[in-house]
């Protein structure tokens, strides 16, 4: 179970991962559109009120392309035997934890909760902490942290298996690559 959740790349073949990652990505795109959830960045999940199917598809595509653009050349540099399919599978599987955030925005609940919170940023004293807002903040912060950690563990394990990553230097490059891929995805999203 631990392998399935945190390191499926160690055990399952590229074909199994591609099918599983592909199906979950399609389901994720449909649900992102239904729940108006933006996956606008490699590590990002935001709640909105109008996410079209086209936007959800493009965001998913940009996330995968950003991972490929950054991690594939780095993987090739670390180990020339690194395969594109292994990195692509990581890009597909990686977002699965973030899909667990989507139920929070059923009927735009999370988006509606965050509205007064965002509006009060210029004047925090105006903010009224209702029970619902406290529940929203607690859920998004706890779930968000757990999911971000899970996502990074998946990315690390997937990249490690794909490249036979070892040592501190490779680890530092991996951390830099996460930041660069996030920036690349944000830049690409500007053209969306």
């Amino acid at each position, binding site marked *: 179970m631990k392998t399935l959740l945190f390191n499926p*790349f*160690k*055990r*399952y*073949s*590229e074909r199994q*991962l591609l099918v599983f990652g592909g199906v979950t990505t399609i389901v994720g795109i449909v649900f992102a559109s239904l729940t108006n959830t933006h996956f606008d960045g490699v590590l990002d999940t935001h709640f909105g009120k109008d996410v079209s199917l086209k936007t959800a598809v493009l965001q998913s595509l940009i996330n995968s392309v950003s991972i490929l653009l950054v991690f594939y050349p780095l993987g090739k540099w670390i*180990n020339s*035997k690194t*395969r594109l399919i*292994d990195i692509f599978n990581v890009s597909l599987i990686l977002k699965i934890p973030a899909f667990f955030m989507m139920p929070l925005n059923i009927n735009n609940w999370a988006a509606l909760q965050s509205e007064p919170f965002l509006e009060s940023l210029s004047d925090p004293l105006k903010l009224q902490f209702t029970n619902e807002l406290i529940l929203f903040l607690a859920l998004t912060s706890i779930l968000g942290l757990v999911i971000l950690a899970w996502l990074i563990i998946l990315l690390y394990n997937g990249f490690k*298996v*794909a490249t*036979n990553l070892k040592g501190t230097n490779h680890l530092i490059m991996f951390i830099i690559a996460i930041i660069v891929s996030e920036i690349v995805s944000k830049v690409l999203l500007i053209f969306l």
Partner: protein
Amino acid sequence: MSPKLPIQCPACEDALKVSQLRCDSCSTLVSGNYSMPVFLKLAAEEQDFILKFLINSGSLKEMAKQMHISYPTIRNRLDDLIEKIKQLQTNEDSTL
């Protein structure tokens, strides 16, 4: 259960050498100071991995299927093993 061939000194963890060989049929003893072949210096699991690699005609994909692990995981194990063998050979050459 057949006992495992010890490859490391239990006291100082240095590589062990062969000092005595015996013929089972006539009990002749040969004494000397022989280095162990590189293959025998590997851990039992590593020797098993090499045997599986040979039996599968070097097909890592076939091995991955049999061992229920992914292709890159098998390839990484092989790469690590190649690195270890190279290191053992370098150590052997430097002691000659």
